[in-house]
């Protein structure tokens, strides 16, 4: 069985920026984890062959970690620079620079994984449009509806 990892990132205290957190919590609930703390550990095992990782942002050190997986799904929010409200696309290793430090992308993560280990997982990026980024733990109504659709995508492609 192929090993899969769901990688969510964003700030759950900033409204829709935390959509990945909400989606990963829903994944855990699917497997009977109702009170799990996504910040508890580096990797949280949801089910045999399915792991979860969550943080505020992508970090270079997860490159080594994801290299051990066959399939990876990155989950994040966007502010509208992507045309589709729910974007779901394969990603390939391409390192992307930024003048502002600590900005690390999924494609960069794959590139680093490949460079360090020679391997990277088959990967996709699931991006959900966010509309409100105020201090809140809840999703906006619009993003909540989108998240429900996004979860269906996760369920059919990664949980079944």
């Amino acid at each position, binding site marked *: 069985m192929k090993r899969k990892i769901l990688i969510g*990132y*964003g*700030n759950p*205290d*900033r409204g829709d*920026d935390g959509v990945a957190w909400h989606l990963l919590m829903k994944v855990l609930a699917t497997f009977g984890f109702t009170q799990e703390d996504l*910040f*508890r*550990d*580096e990797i949280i095992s949801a089910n045999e062959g399915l792991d979860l990782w969550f*943080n*505020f*942002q992508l970090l*270079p*050190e997860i*490159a*080594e970690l994801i290299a051990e997986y066959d399939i990876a799904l990155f989950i*994040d*929010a*966007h*502010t509208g*620079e*992507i045309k589709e409200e729910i974007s779901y696309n394969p990603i390939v290793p391409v*390192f*992307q*620079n*930024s*003048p*502002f*430090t*600590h*900005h690390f*992308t*999924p*494609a*960069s993560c794959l*590139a*680093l994984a490949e*460079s*360090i280990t020679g391997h990277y997982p088959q990967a996709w*990026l699931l*991006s959900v449009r966010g509309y409100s*980024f*105020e*201090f809140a733990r809840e999703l906006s109504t619009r993003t909540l509806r989108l998240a429900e659709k996004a979860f269906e995508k996760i369920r059919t492609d990664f949980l079944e």
Partner: protein
Amino acid sequence: MVAQKITIEPVTRIEGHAKVTIHLKENGEVEHAYFHVNEFRGFEKFCEGRMIFEMPSITPRICGICPVSHHLASAKAGDIVMGCPPPRTASLLRELMHMGQIIQSHGMHFFELAGPDLILGFDADPAVRNVVGLIQADANLALKAVALRKFGQEIIRMVGGRRIHPTFALPGGVNKSLTTADRDAMLSEIDEMIAITQTGLKIFKDWAAANQEDINKFAVFSSGYMGLVTPENSLELYQGDIRLVGSDGKQLEKYDSNDYLDVIAEHVEDWSYLKFPYYKKMGYPAGVYRVGPLGRLNAVDQIDTPLANQEFKEYREMNAWKPIENTLHFHYARLIEILFAVERVRVLLDDPDILGKDILNTRHHFKGEGVGVIEAPRGTLLHHYIVNENGQVEKVNLIVSTGHNNWAMSEAVDSVAKTYIKGPEIKEGLLNRVEAAIRAHDPCLSCSTHAIGQMPLVLDIKDTSGNIVKTLRRDA
């Protein structure tokens, strides 16, 4: 040719986007360049009404990049507000966590973010001028970089009990002691981390020897310098008075963080949302100063750990013990600080009190107001709370490191633009250098969220009517 305005505008996630605007004269030379930042606001309102003991858990959530710095500064402010100084063991443990933060943040910055600029060159193709290109050039180096950052992250996890959002420090102390096994695990890696850091220093020095001309003309300018110090004016990253020195290196002020409002004021420019802190007595802009590695190593007289002090002496002798003004030496200073932090970890772990069990002072003598200060990786971080008698926060003021360095980043961009733009033709290498000028300061702009996917650098050349006549784009 009419006078033109060039705008470089990376797109970020929320309201905070930063951009660079370059105004050209008619002859193509730079009249002035500006680095604009949208200041993040809202956290003060968010914190009002919260209980003081919640603040060390709330404030780290503002910024996903440096949560530990906010966590510790917040707890320190709470110590003063509640009148409950922490036991010695708690202070040692907090400082240990902080050293982990310094090591991982600085390590990542040099090896993975700024290192490629230096090792692969400013004019290298952006496709390889990154850590992947660095790996291809030196695979071992990249692995060492990952190891150094992991070491810092593991310290935070071992001390705080969890890798992210540690609920560790609180007013009066901490809630977790250190085990002997964890202490020994950290100690066992010190020598390797020192060796990795010294590798980084060698890389920088070799690069500097071959690129002295660039170093001497790349964003070199005078300013004041500020950072925490020990009573003997040694480098201090966790606890101490704040020392401000002038452009000649002579002390202007040495003050308790609780008195910062007597010393620092904030100036407003109409072209930026972010304010410009300055030394009140000298006014603005004469009183501007820099913080962070360059600022700190100019504000101190020595470093109390042997290897770092040796490097520090060599570093300051470059300019005959006058302040180092070269922006690119932020990287050199950052490496020296990593060395200090690693050595300091050993000092802390060798202290028998680090394993103590007296970690929380529960006796309160309520004061109602307090300022917690810490030297975050990027510079001096201040958390100022005013709390009512019920323990509820009524007012919060926070000065972050990037705020202190706002003037310096803009000045660096202006200097780089004037040095490297000499005519109407704008070359790709300019974008690299502008990026490098900003990157040297290691600015933290996200403050709570991050940008997805691309963070393009867009340079619009506009005429004086605002029409875009040319666009350059760096698709990150």
